[in-house]
């Protein structure tokens, strides 16, 4: 298995690694003892499973080489993501192969640290505790907390709890969208979170719903959003977004309405008011908005009356439209009211049943209400709980407001069992750690919404001494109950048997098929609901703390969700699209505030709330509402803590949760993230942010271009003007075979960074760390640029995925003294690592600066090196590298075609970035084949080349973004 060799060599001596090779160590190669039918060495096999990085539950295909997973891709058959995957899903591998993964069971000795133990010993402790408690009849003192498990696994956990007489299980998800449930109870009398049919909407009116980042199911909804919004044969939907901060989602809006934080509800009602007054909605809705006066509303919300009016028009005239709420809009003390108002908007516009579909309800509806979590916290603090069992993926000590005092409460619990497989803030408080297998190593199932059941199967053998939580619980449960296998309430020997028996009725004998498809998928009929119209309290959200302070917007991070993904160094290094910052958290401060306090980017600020203070570097943003500061959730320095790799760990917390009170939404009792006003003070020290993009101003260079919707329509009708051939003295190169090319639709790109991480995973791109990244030494082959146009306070944002343009007249090639950079016969710009001497001339001469240089010998700390793609060379220090258009996939695709004795067809070869793109902005294909999608798109009137005037004649064609007239 030759591609594995370099692990030894690289770790041994950098100089001799990838291209040295003069020395030869004898090494042994081991044959299998018994051949494994599923695995042929050197040939990838794929296993379908479900991504558990967040509750969205996307389908995943895991690529297995020689028994190890090297890449994750979306499952095309899965109804939620249909082949796409977000950056967090792509980075799940880093959790699987995390260097800090817990090696085996650990037991705390007295008050001191952990010491490793055998499974038997560790389980024995748990059993003893369980039996003792049951013996004392204190079953209720046992609490079981897990992440959202909507399928049979959840049922098993509940059954375990009942069998032992424990408290009802608590499923802990910080982002539970309870107010939506509550509001639906009120308006539609249905306790559920519906399916929002973006694809059918003409206009989407979003109140803070960050559906491109984290809201409900970001991949699924981003996909559907692209379908309704991106320009296709002359038609394109409209998207209006209301939020005090320009989030990534907001920056994709055709119109971004910046409102005073906490006034979304009022704004919604004002819009409804206009609709009623102007006869765009049924009179009956009048009583819902009886108390709302447009002028006053305009003042309080800080949104001009005209804006409200025309938003109302745009929304009401859409057939159908869709209004959604989420993010900061529905996490205030008035969250439920806000969502009720939004529901009324949908009802008034007649969207219910069309774009708002009850029936295929989201699994989020099954999350334990926050009230119960709070109750559990109180119980623990009161000493009622004597045994706490924490499932993998739950980290309440980090992901819940410190106002709940959860960490202290947990410390009060006599016996805490954690199933975490990577140490986190909560497992540190445990007494026994029984590392559960990573979801890629486990059996399980997950139903993201009604009718969709995804099945999890082990895609590889566990790389650490960890066991499925289910198995452990079954074993200790039986031991505690004194029953043996096959009998009693917990008869199943392992969770695998349990699941297979549970699935039997669903898969109807065809388990193989179901596993191959990745689950059992059915359509669920839309349930009819009627809206109850009642007056809504339109008062803005109440905020604790200094009245003169700034509203704190703590928002879920695109990259880390609630922080569970922060262990991935890939994600730490993939920039936040809006700020382009990596490896650090920041507090976003509006320009006005910055000027008042004399703050520059990188100045350390103390963010003070009644709960405490948080010290973070400032990021000055011209777009943020002056009355607010924003801090992303989920940031923590965790990658490779034990090795102190990549970034100097900072003792100070970066988690806004530490300054949030235990505030709740009055009506639903849901956790309120927007609940406090903070004051800023400048500390005088600095912590420069690692920001990858030097400037967001294109300086009139038209790198990312846009076209007006009307113009785009005309062009689409007229077609593209024929492109005159370039003038040259020399004969052009002829391509005997195919000529590869790529098109990227800037209009479809939503800037979600999935492609960046996918590329990193596919091409063995190393992680360089904060210092290097800040100094222009990041190695991403594909980078996602944000270019801002127009007024700085409300810019039009253009997202430009920039990768090697594979120019036909490539400036990098002729300057290379050794032909390491050259033009292949298939129109690629080849880069031969083992020929490269490292003069870096090509890097200077590339006008796009997409060439990356190996400044050091970058490490892949064990066991991360196991993830490396065997088909891609790991580059040695001192060589140039860059996007190869996944040449290894091209080779594989041609090989497959030759096996089938045919030529390469369109779609045979899919690059990693294209494969994972939720909005299908990227198309790869043969430009000589007139029929290929890529070629068709290059003929589009919107097609252009970046820096065309230089005459490099790139093989990557971009399609202009279509901007709406009023944007």
């Amino acid at each position, binding site marked *: 298995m030759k591609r594995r060799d370099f692990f030894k060599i690289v770790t041994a001596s950098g100089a001799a690694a990838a291209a040295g090779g003069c020395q030869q160590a004898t090494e042994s190669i081991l044959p299998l003892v018994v051949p494994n039918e599923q695995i042929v060495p050197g040939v990838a096999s794929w296993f379908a499973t479900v991504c558990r990085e967040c509750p969205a539950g996307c389908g995943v295909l895991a690529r297995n080489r020689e028994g190890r997973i090297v890449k994750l891709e979306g499952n095309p058959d899965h109804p939620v993501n249909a082949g796409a995957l977000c950056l967090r899903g792509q980075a799940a591998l880093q959790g699987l192969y995390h260097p800090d993964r817990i090696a085996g069971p650990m037991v705390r000795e007295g008050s001191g640290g952990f010491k490793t133990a055998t499974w038997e010993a560790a389980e024995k402790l748990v059993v003893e505790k369980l039996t003792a408690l049951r013996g004392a009849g204190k079953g209720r003192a046992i609490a079981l907390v897990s992440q959202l498990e909507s399928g049979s696994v959840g049922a098993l956990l509940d059954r375990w709890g009942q069998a032992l007489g424990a408290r009802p299980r608590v499923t802990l998800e910080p982002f539970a969208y309870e107010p939506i449930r509550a509001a639906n109870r009120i308006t539609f009398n249905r306790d559920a979170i519906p399916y929002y049919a973006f694809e059918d909407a003409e206009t989407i009116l979003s109140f803070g719903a960050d559906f491109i980042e984290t809201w409900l199911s970001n991949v699924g909804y981003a996909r559907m959003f692209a379908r309704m919004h991106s320009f296709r044969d002359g038609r394109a939907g409209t998207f209006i977004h209301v939020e005090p901060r320009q989030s990534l989602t907001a920056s994709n809006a055709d119109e971004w309405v910046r409102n005073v934080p906490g006034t979304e509800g009022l704004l919604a009602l004002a819009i409804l008011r206009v609709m009623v007054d102007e006869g765009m909605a049924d009179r009956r809705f009048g009583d819902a908005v009886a108390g709302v006066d447009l002028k006053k509303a305009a003042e309080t919300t800080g949104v001009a009356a005209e804006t409200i009016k025309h938003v109302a028009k745009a929304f009401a005239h859409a057939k159908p439209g869709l209004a959604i709420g989420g993010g900061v809009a529905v996490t205030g003390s008035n969250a439920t009211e806000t969502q009720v108002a939004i529901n009324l908007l949908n009802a008034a516009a007649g969207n219910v049943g069309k774009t708002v579909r009850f029936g295929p309800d989201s699994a989020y509806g099954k999350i334990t209400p926050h009230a119960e979590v709070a109750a559990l916290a109180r119980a623990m603090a009161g000493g009622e709980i004597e045994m706490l069992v924490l499932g993998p993926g739950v980290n309440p000590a980090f992901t819940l407001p410190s106002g709940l005092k959860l960490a202290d409460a947990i410390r009060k619990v006599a016996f805490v069992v954690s199933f975490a497989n990577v140490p986190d803030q909560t497992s540190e408080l445990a007494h026994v750690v029984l590392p559960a297998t990573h979801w890629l190593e486990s059996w399980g199932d997950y139903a993201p919404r009604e009718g969709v059941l995804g099945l999890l199967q082990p895609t590889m053998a566990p790389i650490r001494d960890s066991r499925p939580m289910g198995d452990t619980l079954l074993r200790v449960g039986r031991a505690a109950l004194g029953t043996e296998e096959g009998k009693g309430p917990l008869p199943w020997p392992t969770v695998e048997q349990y699941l297979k028996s549970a699935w039997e009725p669903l898969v109807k004998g065809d388990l193989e098929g179901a596993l191959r498809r990745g689950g059992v998928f059915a359509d669920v009929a839309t349930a009819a609901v009627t809206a109850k119209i009642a007056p809504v309290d339109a008062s803005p959200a109440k905020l604790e703390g200094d009245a003169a302070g700034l509203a704190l917007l703590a928002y879920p991070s695109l990259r880390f969700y609630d922080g569970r993904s922060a262990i991935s160094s890939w994600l730490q290094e993939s920039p936040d699209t809006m700020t382009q910052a990596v490896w650090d958290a920041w507090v976003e401060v509006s320009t006005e505030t910055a000027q008042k306090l004399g703050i520059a980017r990188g100045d350390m600020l103390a963010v003070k709330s009644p709960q405490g203070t948080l010290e973070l570097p400032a990021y000055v943003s011209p777009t943020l509402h002056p009355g607010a500061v924003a801090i992303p959730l989920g940031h923590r320095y965790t990658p490779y803590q034990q090795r102190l790799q990549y970034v100097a760990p900072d003792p100070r917390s970066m988690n806004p949760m530490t300054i949030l009170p235990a505030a709740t939404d009055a009506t639903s009792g849901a956790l309120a993230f927007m609940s406090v006003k903070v004051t800023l003070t400048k500390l005088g020290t600095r912590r420069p942010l690692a920001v990858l993009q030097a400037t967001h101003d294109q300086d009139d260079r038209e790198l990312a271009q846009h076209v007006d919707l009307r113009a785009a329509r005309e062009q689409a009708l007229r077609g593209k003007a024929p492109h005159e051939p370039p003038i040259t003295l*020399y*004969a052009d*190169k002829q391509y005997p075979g195919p000529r590869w090319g790529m098109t990227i639709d800037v209009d479809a790109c939503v800037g979600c960074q999935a492609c960046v991480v996918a590329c990193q995973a596919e091409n063995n791109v190393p992680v360089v760390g904060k210092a290097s990244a800040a100094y222009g030494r990041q190695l991403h082959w594909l980078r996602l640029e944000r270019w801002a146009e127009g007024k700085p306070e409300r810019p039009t944002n253009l997202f430009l995925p920039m990768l090697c343009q594979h120019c036909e007249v*490539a400036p990098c*090639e*002729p300057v290379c003294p050794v*032909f390491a950079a050259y*033009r292949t016969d298939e129109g690629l710009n080849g880069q031969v690592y083992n020929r490269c001497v490292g003069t870096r001339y090509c890097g200077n001469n590339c006008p796009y600066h997409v060439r990356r240089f190996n400044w050091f010998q970058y490490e892949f700390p064990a066991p991360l090196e196991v993830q490396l793609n065997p088909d891609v060379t790991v580059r040695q220090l001192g060589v140039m590298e860059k996007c190869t258009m996944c040449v290894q996939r091209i080779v594989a695709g041609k090989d497959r075609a030759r096996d089938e004795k045919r030529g390469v067809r369109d779609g045979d070869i899919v690059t990693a970035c294209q494969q994972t793109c939720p909005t299908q902005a990227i198309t790869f294909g043969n430009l000589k084949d007139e029929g290929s999608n890529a070629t068709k798109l290059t003929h589009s009137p919107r097609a252009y080349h970046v820096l065309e005037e230089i005459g490099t004649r790139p093989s990557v064609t971009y399609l202009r973004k279509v901007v709406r007239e009023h944007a």
Partner: protein
Amino acid sequence: MATETILGVFAHVDTTVRALEELRARGYHDLTVYTPIPVHEIEEVLERDRPVSRVRLFTLLGGLTGIASAFLITIWTSMVWGQVTGGKFLQLVPGGIIGSSLPPFFIIAFEMMVLFGGFATVIGMVVLGRLPRLKASASFDPRFTNDRFGVAVHCAPERAAAVHELLRTAGAEEVKSR
């Protein structure tokens, strides 16, 4: 037949020249003249019946070789495995050479011309000047690299006396037979 060498050591250029003129007049042509520096007057006398140094021939040939080899290697290498760089390439097709981009090769050619030419020149000088000589010639005297001029006359022994006389009258500080 045995010849004798008579060496005259001079302190001045004009005396040396006078001696040479005398010698030539008397029909002595087998002379070796040692000077610390090249002196016009002396050269004039000596160069009268000598061809121009053939070093320049070496230079010419060297230069031409350089040019030829440069074009050979550049063009040949881009034929045997011509990679396309920046859309430029050099390819042999039935119709002849296409896509050719020769200009850069002239630079190589120029440099190689100078290199080969230079080396050839020195080789020429060494070979024609009978260098390197491993041991000093009989009639050489260390002073000749400092401030003295030497005239060594190779003649038949019987005429030695006459040469002695001639050199002394011409103004030699010292005359000796070797």
